[in-house]
C-alpha cells in the first residue's frame, strides 16, 4: 500500500489513517467520534489511545503518579 495519493506529497493511505485517527488534539466530553466503517485494527488502536489518555488524565488530576505505562507509550 504505497501509492501516492496527493500530488507533490508522499501521502499514503496507511500513513494518513495512522495520523488522522491516532494523532491530533483530542477534546474529551463535548465531541462525537465517528467510528463507523473503521476496521478492527484501527478501532482497537483508538480504543487504546482513548484509554491511555483517560489513564493519563486521571493520574494527573489525582495524585501525580510517576509514569504510567500508557503515558510513556504515547509520547
Amino acid at each position, binding site marked *: 500500500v504505497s501509492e501516492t495519493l496527493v500530488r507533490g506529497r508522499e501521502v499514503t493511505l496507511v500513513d494518513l489513517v495512522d495520523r488522522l485517527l491516532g494523532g491530533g*488534539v483530542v477534546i474529551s466530553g463535548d465531541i462525537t467520534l465517528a467510528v463507523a466503517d473503521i476496521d478492527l485494527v484501527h478501532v482497537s488502536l483508538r480504543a487504546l489511545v482513548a484509554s491511555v489518555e483517560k489513564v493519563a488524565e486521571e493520574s494527573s488530576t489525582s495524585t501525580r503518579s510517576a509514569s504510567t505505562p500508557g503515558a510513556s507509550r504515547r509520547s
Partner: protein
Amino acid sequence: VKRGLSEPPAPEPATLLDHDRVVYSLMQRCAVVPMRFGTVVDDEGTIRSLLLKRRSELKGLLAHVRGRVEFGVRSDEVAAPASGREYMSAKLEAKRSLAPLAELAVDTRVRRKDTAYLVDGDLVGAFEERARSMKLALSGPWPPYSFTGALDG
C-alpha cells in the same frame, strides 16, 4: 486553527483525504494544530469555550509547530524477536541509525509504525536530501498531526 466541518464524517479514504487537504492548505497560511479526525463540536460557543479552556496548552502547541512540517519514516518491524533483549537492542539500533535525521529535526515522536519528525521550513530541503542519502522513504510533508500531544520537557 478552526475548521468548518459540521457533520460527523465517516472515516473513509475520501473523507480522510479531504480532512488532510483542508488542514494542509490551512497550514500554507498559518500555524495549525490539527484536531483528531472525527471531532464534532455542537456549536461555535462550545468551540470558543473549548479553545479558551485550553488556551495556554494550544498556544504552546502552536508556537511549537509554527513554520514547521512533519515528516514520517516507516520503521521496520522487528521480525519475531527471540527475546525481549533482542527486541530492545533492535529498537535501539534503529534509533541510532536514524540519528542523522533526528539531528535536522526540532522534535521527534516514535509512533506505532513510524517515526515522525518536526522539521523547520528552512531545513525541509536538507532533511529530504539526507533521507535520500540514507535511502529512506519519507512520507509527508504533513501538518503536525503527531505533535499535538503534551510537549516533552
